[in-house]
Every structure is written in C-alpha cells, then in structure tokens.
C-alpha cells in the first residue's frame, strides 16, 4: 500500500515537470533585429519576449518562413546566410552561407525544400529543409526578386534586370523551369495569392503591374493597370514597396503604387481597376487584415512614422496615427484581433487592438524590422 502511494505520488509529481517541457509554437513568432543580427522569440498572447537568438549575420532586409509543423524557421539574411532556427529548443539548428547577397526565400508546400532568392550570384538556390544540403541551383544571370512558393512543389520568381518570370517545378526532383518573357521593366517584387492561382509582380521601370494565371497550363503576362500614373509626375521612391500574399481584401486586391502616394484597388477576378486611395506617402506595405475588412499601410522614408488604416468598403482612410520613428513592418495575429508593429528607431515593437486602435502592449527590441508569426506556416506565399 505504501509502495502504491509512492507510485501515485511519483506520477503526480512528474506530471507538472513534463508539462513544463512541452512547447507549443502556434502562439509564437520571431522579430528580426536587423542591426545586431539577432532574433527575438516572442509570445503573441503574453506580449512578451521569450529569448534572444544571436549569430545570424547581416539581417538587413531579412525575412523568414516556417516549417509545416511550426517548429523551425528558415531565416534569409542579406549576406546570403540561410539559418534554420529551432523554436522549441530556442537556438540555431544549423546555418550556411549560400551566396554573396540574398533577398529572401520560400518553402515548398510539402515543407521539404527551401529556396533562396539571390542578387549575387543572381538566381535561386534550393536546399533540403532538413539538412540544408544543396538540392538545385538555378542561375538567372539577373538579380532575382519576388520568389514565392506555389502549390505542387513549385517556386516562382522574377528577374529584375531581364523582366522575366520563371516557374521552377520540383515535383520530379530536378527543376523543370518554364520561362515567361515580357513581364515588364524592372519588376521589383511579387506576390502569389493564397489560393496559389495569381502571381502578380510590381514594376519599377514602368507604371502598372503584370499578373500570371498559374492555373493556366501556359501562363501569359496579363497587364494590370498599365500607365496608372499617366500624366502625373513621379515622386522619388526612397524605399521600394513590398508585395505579399495578404493583398486580397474581400473581392479586391489592394496594392501600393510606385512613385505615387496612393494605393491601387483591382477586382480580384477581372483585374480591372476599382479605385485608388490617396495616401500619406509612398506606401511600403499595404496589408489586408486577415478578415479583409481593413487595410493597414505604412510608408517610405521620410514619412515612415505614420500608419493609415483604410476601410475596404469605402476605400477611405478611417484612422491615422504615428506609432513612432521608422515604422518598418506590421504583422497581424492569425485572426487579426491584434497587430504588432516594429518601430525601428524607437527600439520597440508596439501591439495594437485592430478594432479600437488602442495600444495593448510593447516590447523592447534592438532596431526591429520584420515580424513573423508561426501561422504563416500554413499560408501559401508567406
């Protein structure tokens, strides 16, 4: 009897210990500290930093993607560094430097391949997600931008200098590349819609955007809003806008114009213009809240202390505020009840309620830029 009590006690005692060792990652995220080459592992619900992970090299313009199980992050640094970070162990799992100058990456829909978009040498390199061993090298002879994952173990990317989009199909192991010419002059970034159907690239060298219908077996460039700035003098662009797969708000897309202080609205089916909204400055990110009801916009230097919130039914600015100097990035919680905002020169990440716009918290961070929550693991194109 005494022995039995002891056994029960042992089980009871071990239970809490075991509970403490379980790390669920669905509520976590990573914040890039660009100047110090470090990441903050954060807890969304607690508005708290769990730990700082250091030693990731040059993280200017860094971005990352998550493994399907939300355990690992793959971090793409400017210096060509590809770092696999373990959120459960809270440490770097492995790290390689795969090129001289890189601009971002993507993970295949099955989570087995990680692709990196490179400026130097121009092209895309693909690695095994488990080991980071090289799987394929696709040189393009051009700075390569707008790399996204597409369904069916494919990657789509675009050539800044050559104005082409390439679709690399890795379903058969080795890349089968389809080249699409005549996308336009100097495509600077691109997005893929959450359903994996439309790939849209923004153009720096001319007004307008170019879309591809990836459901078409032989996709052809579709001009979108050609000459959207006709007759207007272009304004200087002190920071290139970003295009990401959150652009769809209800039945429309909202996209930043280049060289004009406005966001552009297009019909999600016909790709015809449905409106424009004048904005405070050159938009950098125009992010639809996950429910699509509002779009949050931040701006390029020197107007980058401001955020505007646009109502997607009226296309009017309904809220404007100044979180602080150099707002670089915003990230919504998965269902959009809160937004995290990195304010680089204040050394803080601010958390706001997306309905009341009330500030809900803040955390200290060293020159924070990108914020990435683990729910991205389950979204195509993020």
């Amino acid at each position: 009897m005494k022995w039995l009590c002891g056994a029960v006690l042992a089980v009871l005692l071990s239970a809490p210990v075991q509970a403490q060792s379980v790390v669920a990652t669905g509520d976590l995220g990573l914040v890039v500290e660009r100047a110090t080459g470090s990441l903050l592992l954060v807890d969304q619900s607690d508005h708290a930093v769990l730990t700082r992970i250091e030693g990731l090299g040059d993280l200017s313009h860094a971005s990352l993607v998550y493994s399907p199980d939300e355990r690992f992050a793959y971090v793409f640094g400017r210096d060509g560094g590809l770092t696999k970070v373990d959120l459960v162990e809270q440490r770097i799992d492995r790290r390689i430097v795969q090129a001289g100058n890189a601009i971002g990456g993507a993970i295949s829909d099955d989570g087995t391949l990680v692709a990196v978009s490179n400026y130097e040498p121009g092209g895309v390199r693909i690695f095994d997600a488990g080991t980071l061993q090289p799987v394929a090298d696709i040189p393009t002879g051009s700075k390569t931008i707008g790399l996204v994952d597409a369904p069916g173990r494919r990657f789509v990317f675009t050539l800044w200098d050559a104005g082409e989009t390439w679709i690399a199909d890795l379903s058969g192991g080795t890349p089968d590349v389809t080249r699409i010419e005549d996308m336009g002059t100097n495509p600077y970034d691109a997005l893929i819609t959450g359903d994996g159907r439309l790939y849209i690239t923004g153009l720096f060298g001319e007004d307008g955007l170019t879309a591809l219908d990836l459901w078409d077996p032989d996709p052809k460039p579709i001009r979108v809003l050609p000459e959207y700035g006709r007759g207007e003098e272009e304004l200087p662009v002190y920071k290139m806008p970003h295009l990401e797969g959150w652009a769809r708000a209800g039945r429309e897309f909202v996209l930043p114009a280049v060289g004009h202080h406005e966001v552009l609205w297009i019909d999600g089916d016909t790709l015809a213009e449905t409106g424009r909204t004048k904005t405070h400055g050159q938009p950098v990110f125009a992010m639809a809240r996950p429910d699509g009801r509002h779009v949050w916009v931040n701006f390029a230097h020197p107007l980058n202390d401001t955020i505007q919130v646009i109502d997607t039914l009226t296309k009017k600015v309904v809220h404007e505020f100044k979180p602080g100097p150099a707002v670089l990035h915003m990230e919504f919680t998965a269902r959009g009840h809160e937004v995290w905002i990195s304010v680089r020169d204040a050394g803080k990440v601010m958390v706001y309620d997306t309905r009341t716009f009330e500030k809900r918290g803040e955390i200290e961070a060293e020159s924070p830029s990108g914020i990435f929550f683990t729910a991205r693991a389950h979204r195509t194109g993020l």
Partner: protein
Amino acid sequence: MLKLLLTVAFCLLAITSLALAAESSPPQVLVSLVHQDCGSCHGMTLKGGLGPDIRPEALAHYDVDTLSTVVLDGIPKTAMPPWRPLISEADARRIAEYLLKGDIK
C-alpha cells in the same frame, strides 16, 4: 478649394523641407541615414542589394563632387532617387565623403 488646400499643403511641405535642408545634421544622424535608409537598397552594410555596393573600394572611381551630385539628383532611369528634397548640399557632400573614406566629420 481642395486644390487651394493642396497648394498650401505643398508650400508648407516645401518650406519644411527647405528648413530641414538648410540645417547641417550631426554626424550620427547622417551615418544612421546612410546605413538605415540608403541601406534599404544598398544593404545596411552598404555591400549592395537592389542598388549596387557603395563601400569605399566600390566607389573609388567617383570624386566627392560627382558623388554628392548623384546623392542630390539621383540617377535617372534607375532606382536611385534624388535626395535633394530631404538633405542639404552640405550634408550630401559630407555623405559623399563618408562613403568614399568611411569617416565623417
């Protein structure tokens, strides 16, 4: 009325920019501008991104005059914007010197 308002707003903006442009900025402000904001295109370490490498060895073929003109007026038909609306000629010159020598006064 809207047009008048816009004109007034534009004039105010222009005056503010001029006021800013007339000032000489402290070195740390210029260094931060170069690495953080020029760094949007050229990389925070200036080794290049969408824009080229602008470390001293890469810019050796420029003199201070030419380079400060590039900073002020940009390079047409490229992504290099004119910074004249935001910075003074004197500051552009100090930025050019910083880029060429890696030092700032």
